[in-house]
Each structure stands twice: as C-alpha cells, then as structure tokens.
C-alpha cells in the first residue's frame, strides 16, 4: 500500500494481522519440519513436543479470526483492506490445518518408532517434506509482499509434490507386497506422505488466497489439483 490510513490505529490492526499470520506460518513450518525429523530419527520426545505445540497454532487461529471480525465491525474495510482481512482469515484456517497434519505425523512417530523403515522411503519422505515446506515458506513470503506472480508460480509447482507423492505411494505398495510385516509401518508412512501432500495443497490454497488479496481476481481452476494415486494399481503378484 502506498499511503497509510488517516486513522493510524487501523494500520496497526492490519499490521497486527499480518504479523500474527507470519508467526503462525513460522510455527506451522516448524511443527512439520520437527515432525519429519522426529519420524526420521525415531525421536518420540520431539514428536511429543510437536503434538503439544498444536495448541498454540489453534489459539493463534482463533485470535486472528476474532481480530479480523473486530476490524470488519469497527472499520468497515473496503477494497484491498477488505481482501487482506478476508485473506488473513482464510490463510489462518489453512495454517491451522497444516499444524494438524504435522501433529498427525508426530502421532505416527510414536506408533512406528520401533519398526525398521526402509532408507529410500525415508529419504523420499524427506524430499517430499522439503518441497512442501519450501512451498509453505514462499507462499507466506508472497503474502507479506502481496506478490501475485510468486503466488502463481507456487501454485504451478504443486505438481512436483503430487508426482513425488504418487511415486512414494507405489514404492510403499511394493514394500507391503514384498513382506506383509512391513504393512503396519508402511501404512503409517503412507499417511505421513499423504499428510505432506495435503500440506502442499494448503500451500496452494494460500497461494490462491494471496493472488486474490493482491489482485482482486480469482485464479482459474485449470490446474489439476489431485494426486494421481487414485489410478495406481497394485503391482501383479507372481505366484
């Protein structure tokens, strides 16, 4: 925004929302990164910490919605201000879901930490989560800079995450078929992978919100959003 509001308290309120969203983003990123670290290192203490942090994220989301409602009631925002406030509410909801997904991964750490995990799968999950976390980080940068171009490129990149998720899905299936003793661990890992893929989808949602906040236009829904695993068949079993 080029100029400031005549009422400076209004600017303070909008800045508060922006700051809180970016704090929420940092917290959500940290939770997801820690949950993955806990998974890879079988660190149940770290997993517990992630689980307990979710409360903070839930609280932040509630605070943001309450503040946003209050600003709407007091200031009757218009145009870009209105879009920014509505965007904050939506992004806070997405980030809260990201935290839930991180927490879910952390819970699975406790279930699988005693089981052997194939190295290549763990690396695959690591790569997937790095991509999703980069998406999340960049989309929050896009929100604070109101960059519609960055939002568009982030949305385009979600395909990569979907592709890696689909290949992990195939790999996990193969492991399960090779040895039924892998099934418990692999099912948990499969959910972890799915959670990370969903985090990527939330980053995509946020990118769409950022685009709307920045331009006032909605992105068209041309981009294929779903993962491909619905079409993946189990490999044939040799008798």
């Amino acid at each position, binding site marked *: *925004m*080029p*100029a*400031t*509001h*005549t*009422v400076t308290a*209004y600017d303070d309120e909008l800045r508060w929302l922006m700051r809180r969203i970016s704090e929420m983003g940092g917290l959500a990123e940290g939770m997801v990164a820690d949950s993955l670290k806990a998974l890879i290192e079988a660190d149940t203490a770290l997993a517990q910490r992630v689980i307990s942090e979710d409360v903070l994220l839930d609280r932040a989301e509630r605070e943001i919605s309450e503040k946003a409602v209050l600003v709407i009631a007091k*200031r*009757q*925002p*218009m*145009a*870009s*201000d*209105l*879009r920014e406030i509505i965007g904050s509410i939506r992004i806070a909801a997405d980030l809260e879901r990201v935290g839930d997904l991180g927490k879910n991964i952390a819970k699975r750490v406790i279930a699988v930490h005693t089981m052997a995990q194939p190295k290549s799968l763990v690396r695959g999950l690591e790569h997937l989560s790095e991509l999703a976390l980069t998406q999340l980080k960049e989309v929050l940068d896009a929100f604070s800079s109101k960059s519609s171009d960055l939002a568009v490129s982030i949305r385009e990149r979600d395909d990569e995450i979907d592709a890696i998720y689909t290949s992990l899905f195939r790999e996990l299936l193969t492991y399960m078929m090779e040895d039924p003793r892998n099934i418990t661990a692999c099912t948990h890992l499969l959910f972890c992978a799915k959670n990370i893929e969903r985090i990527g989808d939330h980053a995509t949602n946020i990118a769409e919100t950022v685009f709307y906040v920045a*331009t*006032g*236009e909605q992105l068209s829904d041309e981009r294929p959003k779903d993962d491909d695993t619905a079409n993946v068949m189990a490999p044939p079993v040799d008798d």
Partner: protein
Amino acid sequence: MSDAAVEARLSTQEEERDIKMRARGVSVFYGQKQALFGVDLEIPRHAVMALIGPSGCGKSTFMRCLNRMNDTIDSCRIVGDVTLDAEDIYDPAIDVVELRARVGMVFQKPNPFPKSIYENVAYGPRIHGLVRNRQETDEVVERSLTRAGLFKEVKDRLHEPGTGLSGGQQQRLCIARAIAVSPEVILMDEPCSALDPIATATVEELIHELRENFTIVIVTHSMQQAARVSQRTAMFHLGNLVEEADTDKIFTNPEDPLTQDYITGRFG
C-alpha cells in the same frame, strides 16, 4: 436500409432505452474558478448511481447540472451536453420548471414547507396541474406517502405541520413530495447525513423500492451506503471523474489508485 444499418439503429435504440441521462464533456465554472472538468457519464435507467469523492470534488456540482439547479447561481457557467432521454436539457426551448418536475431532488437536510403534511405533498401536483380536484389530490398524497413508507405513521395527522415530524419522517416527507409529481429521475444529495441509523435504513429500503420505477442519483459520503444502495458508482476528485464502474467492483477491486485510497480511508 441494409441489415447492418438496421442492426446499428436497433442497438442504438437499445442503448438509449438503458441510458436515462447522459453527460458529455460537462465543465462547470463558478466565476473564474472551474469546478468540473469535462465529465462524461451515463446514468442507467431504473438503477441507483452513487456519486462519491472527498468534499469539494464536484459530485454535488455535477448532480446539480442534471436538473439545472446551478442556473440559480449567477456566476455559474456550464459547458458540455446533458441529455434526458436523449433530449438536451440545456436547450433554450426547455421549460426548466417542467424539467425539475421530471428530475426531482431531495436535499441533505429535510426541508419541508412550513405547511401541513398534506400540503407539502399536494403542492407540487397542484402547481404542475397533475390533479384536477380534491379527490385526485387525496389519492396522489396517499400514494406518494405510502411509497415513501410514511403513510401509516402520519395518516391520522395529515393536517398537522410537516415540521412537527422527526428528522427521518421529515426526510421521507421530502421524498414523498419529490415523487408526488411523478418524476423520472430523483437526485438525492446526502439524503441520510442528518438521520439516525434506523431512519437511514428506512430511507435506504425506500431507495431500493423506488429503483423499480425511478432512476436515482445519490451523492453520499458514506462508502457503506454507496455500496449498499447503488448498482453503479462514480468517483470524483478535484472536479474530475476518476472512475465509474459497477458498485461491486468499485468497493472490492477499484482500478484507480485514487479510488482505492479514498474508499479505504487513506486520503490526504
């Protein structure tokens, strides 16, 4: 006539049907001072157009061009064209009194005549010869007050002074007075600025209902009011028309940075 020519003529007619008033290159001077700079604006039929902008931006001046209210100011000079149903309202052959019956006006402060409620409404139709006898006058008075949403509240005291009503009732009385002469266009200059929120809501509801039969132009300083009552919004600044678009667009995603700054409260 060729098909293309027929089509062109039909589309022009179509357009004329949808445009009630049109201003082209309207500039206004008060003595040496220019208050409006070449404004082009089309006012759609049976719709509410809101004129917004900071004080002194020329929105009221523009509105006053639409029924030649500026004629009453000696130093005022107007160039450009204003048409009502494609007819030039500044044509010397135009009867200004008749024009103002077709393009009525409601002012910022309710200004009932120091007469009874009944006489306030009956005065216009009488001087314009729209009623021939007492019965017709009664009918016009009742119809106008009903349309203005006031009849139920005042039907037992029609012969009491209009000035004895509350502010909101007085403003609705002025609206009843304006519609009693069956105008085609109603100009409203901040009609709710002196009213409380409930009276404001009543007037806004009224504007919404009047739109079916009248074309309305409203000047307002309340962005929320403009967003609520109008379908088109025109933004003025320093005597220029900055932007004119669908109201939904203006208040969610305006094109011009000046409009953006004004409606979001970042001005000056």
